[in-house]
């Protein structure tokens, strides 16, 4: 069918009007039918989603495995029995929590892993002499434990520190 319209000054060309009307019709039809999409489009969308999921799953799994090993290693190196007991209590508590909280914890793992990776990268770029005390102090603050030269035996802190706090104490 051919539509012929006279184009008066100030009017749109007939072909453009037809094209606009057709486009409007298509939009209305899509809205009224609940957004039906052709099957071919649906299939490609599903395939793309599956592909994305596969890409996301793979790094996430390796992240967790790596983190788990690191955490266990650190725990073996650092934790005291008291801390292990506390960790056990925490683990027990975690076992009693609801599933949504567990999911939150799982989501937090990659973030923590990314942060530790960033820290490792920073350590690698700076010299060992600078990074070592920083890491040790970080460990003290995070875990309450001290290790290495920076916390040699009964001393925590820089040997050149101008303020020295001395505690005289008995364990009993």
């Amino acid at each position, binding site marked *: 069918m051919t539509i012929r319209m006279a184009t008066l000054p100030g009017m749109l060309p007939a072909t453009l009007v037809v094209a606009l009307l057709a486009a409007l019709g298509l939009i209305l039809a899509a809205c009224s039918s609940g957004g039906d999409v052709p099957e071919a489009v649906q299939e490609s969308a599903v395939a793309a989603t599956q592909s994305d999921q596969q890409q996301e799953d793979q790094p996430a799994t390796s992240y967790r495995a790596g983190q788990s090993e690191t955490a266990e290693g650190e725990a073996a190196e650092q934790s005291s*029995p008291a801390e292990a007991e506390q960790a056990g209590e925490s683990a027990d508590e975690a076992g009693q929590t609801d599933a949504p909280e567990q999911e939150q914890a799982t989501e937090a793992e990659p973030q923590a892993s990314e942060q530790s990776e960033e820290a490792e990268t920073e350590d690698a770029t700076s010299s060992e002499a600078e990074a070592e005390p920083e890491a040790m*102090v970080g460990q003290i603050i995070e875990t309450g434990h001290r*290790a*290495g030269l920076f916390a040699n035996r*009964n001393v925590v802190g820089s040997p050149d520190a101008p*303020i020295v*706090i*001395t*505690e005289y*104490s008995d364990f009993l």
Partner: protein
Amino acid sequence: MEELIHSGIARYEYRHFIIFGSASQFAAMATECAGDQGAWWEFHDAYLLDAQARSFTRAGAIDLARDNGLDVARFTQCIDNEEHRDRILEMQRHARSVGISGTPTFRINGQPAARSLSGIIEQVRAAAEAVENQEGS
């Protein structure tokens, strides 16, 4: 306090001051033996938290060493030979020489500190400010 240690302004030192007899002295020696294997603070923390004083015996200390992954044979030899006895007695002598008579006692730059934790923190802050002012001038 951690900030001050982190920034290199302050250093914390723990000194044994034995007032509860042989069990305390043994625990101090065991801690030093653990220190030989890099676990000084693990033992320090464990002893402070050991309300039943189970680790103040030879068997208890060895269990603690095992729990912390230490070389148990080396640790046992160290405590049996009392390898750090002199070190601890020297700390004791030095503490008495500067007027320490009870525990816990804190000193800041060799001067007596407040008895309360908040007082100690205030003193350390004041000392840190003085250091910063000196560095600034």
